[in-house]
């Protein structure tokens, strides 16, 4: 038995921190694009991309929002890169309870990058003339695993154990009748 292979497009933004000049145009256009109606307002506090800036330490790290996470990390590390010390959170894309980043300022609801759906490329990339943000569409292969009859049997057995076989058969019959 061999697994079927399929490809899917993974959209990402590559970030070249050496090229960032810290202008925050990405924050402006992101928050404008996601305003309702579109472009009707802007507010970097609502942006789904943030430039972590510490000009005197020469730190400029654009980070775009990832998944919401329920809990903060247990440990927080420091990274030293090229003589500069970064908090681990600097690179984190999560909206999480331990910090204010990537949350709506009014409601506190988490924000997540959607790659500006409907546009040719994310607008933060389009507005970054410094080319610190590069849009990359990567084709990824992934295996589609065939469903095995045994797996289904295990699942059904568990349900039969819980509800009784008779009830399970009745339910399946009723579902079939609905189809």
């Amino acid at each position, binding site marked *: 038995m061999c697994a079927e292979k399929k490809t899917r497009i993974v959209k990402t933004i590559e970030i070249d921190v050496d090229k960032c000049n810290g202008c925050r145009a990405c924050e402006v256009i992101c928050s*404008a694009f996601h305003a309702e109606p*579109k472009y009707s307002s802007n507010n970097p506090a609502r942006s789904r991309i943030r430039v972590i800036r510490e000009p005197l330490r020469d730190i400029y790290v654009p980070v775009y929002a990832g998944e919401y996470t329920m809990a903060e990390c247990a440990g927080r590390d420091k990274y030293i890169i090229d003589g500069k010390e970064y908090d681990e959170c600097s690179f984190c894309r999560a909206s999480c309870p331990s910090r204010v980043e990537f949350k709506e300022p009014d409601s506190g609801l988490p924000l997540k990058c959607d790659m500006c759906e409907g546009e040719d490329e994310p607008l933060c990339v389009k507005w970054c003339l410094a080319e610190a943000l590069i849009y990359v569409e990567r084709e990824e292969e992934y295996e589609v695993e065939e469903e095995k009859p045994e797996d289904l049997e295990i699942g059904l057995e568990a349900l039969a154990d819980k509800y009784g076989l008779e009830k399970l058969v009745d339910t399946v019959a009723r579902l079939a009748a609905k189809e």
Partner: protein
Amino acid sequence: MRYAETGFNLEVDLSRGNVEKVATDPRDTELYLGGLGTNAKILWDRVPPETDAFDPENLLIFSTGLLNATPATGCNRTIISTISPQTKLMAFSMMGGFWAPELKYAGYDKVIIRGKSPDLVYLYINNDTVEIRDASHLQGKGAIETAEALRQELGDPKLQVSAIGLAGENRVFFASIEQGRSSASRGGIGAVMGDKGLKAIAVRGTKDINLAKPAEFIGLCNEVLEYIKYREDHPIPGVMPILAGLGSPQEMKIHDEKWHTENFMWGNSRVRRKGFWTDEIAKAWTETMESVRRRLISCYNCPMKCGATISVPGLPTYMMKCFSKLTYTMAAMSDLEFGLSIAQKATEYGVDGFSTPQVMAFALELLENGILKESDFPGMPEDNEGRFYWLLDRIVRREGIGDILADGTYWAAERIGNGAHEYAHNNIKKHEQLPLKLSMLNPVYFLMYSTGEKINITQIEGQFPQAPFPKKEQREEFVKDWIQVPDEKFKQYFLDWEPRGENSNPYYPTPQIASEIVDWQEMMHYVDDALGTCAGLSSFPLKPPYHIHNYPKFIEAGTGIPMDKDKLVEITRRNRNLVRAVNIRRGMRRADEKPPANHWKKRFPELEAELLDTYYKFKGWNKDGIPTAETLKSLGLDYVCEDFIKRGILKADEEGEVNAEADQN
């Protein structure tokens, strides 16, 4: 709902410790737009000419521009206006950076400071929280240090801070207000801030800025970004590298300093060093810059990289831009490493990079010529560079001779006497100028130097090339895609302008043509200063992305106020005349409107008089440079006209012309 602007100002009375949030009149936006325009209106209404810079009644206005914090690229300037202690006229220095947009996101268009705090304080603005807080722990701290200290103690790295250093605290007449990578330096506005007992304004904002016609506005922004990319790929041929592209002069990026070092003056604006820029120097200076420059950096929402982070070994990191790269180096006749090192101290102290080096070179020239004595400089080191550091320390502390020098070259000469005025030779209206001494009078520049209300050439020039192109083909090539001209006639003016012969300086451009060219250049600065757009994307460079043809669309789409070219031109005229009115009421007249006597070697008194006459007439001013009643009324400035008549500046039954001439006699 107000669009593009917030519709609120903060009124802060430091004497009483009172803060109020005040709604502004939308009609003022239609008449003056914002930024410099509305600042001038407030100063006119509320600061009478009897008020001196250091009176509590003087206002210090931190203003955003009308388009700050909208997505319009490069709209990030803070426009600070007050009465200058040095010129005693209206000062309107500006800075880029991040402060003004942050103020708007906090919900305010301006912070208007009045009164004086008995103790040193700072202002904390976080959306609706506005507090006057004790700053005694920041006393004597550097401007950059102060900003960092506030970010640390308030635990907010996103706080944007405008602060003064020691120079502002000690009311040095050329003290600046610093904001990390930017500074508002001209006219001594930092001294006014220090006089008010205000060390810093720290701002954080998380509110929305709205647009009236969103899709249209973003379309315009995208066009501007496309044009910036085009101009990056198409530098203008035939002009020096720092002026070929966009942005403010690319001093941080470009190493070739042949033009500045060989054409600008060294020392106290005295010595021209032809042949200075050898391969050896070029190599050494390039190495210096590359070894200390960590990154080219931008202001808010702008792709240009006019600034740089500078880390000189052994010194704290600071940020720099533009020509302050060379002003200390050239005043001290030293090298780039010295200039970049002393500039770190100067930035922390918060002093103007144009005036300060000249004041120090002036002092040493007075010593050399026996007007000041060794005894005036007790403890000054022997070595040249050590002397500059020593002088800088005395000036910002107002110690000994430093107390006199801290008033700038004009007032220092006044106090020193004994012929010292001969050495304060590079001023216009008491204000130190770029160190330039040239040969042949340039009529356009004559008018700009003489009449520019900002008293700084870089804040009025732009748009039109500084010099004629040698070949006709070059000129034809240049005008081909010159879309920025307000009128096609400007192309012909440029085509006709030749380096030599009949159509060359000083008689061409003719007084009439020169007036039109100056008017266009100045007009663009007045648009920028009302909108908060950086001159580097608009009024300063050749062929910029913003111009008189797309600006009205930006304003209309941003604010919802119907706008076209004619209406915008009228607003700039209104603002221009209002600024002038503030200064006229403070006593400024034709006699003050002149470049330094030695700016050009070849001078033409008759022609110069004709230039001024023609320009004044073109502007609707009388022979003394006073806006006529007719001009004022046509711009809706009737209240200015009434005040002028009440004060006898204009006569009720005449247009001002006769009255002003009577004054001169």
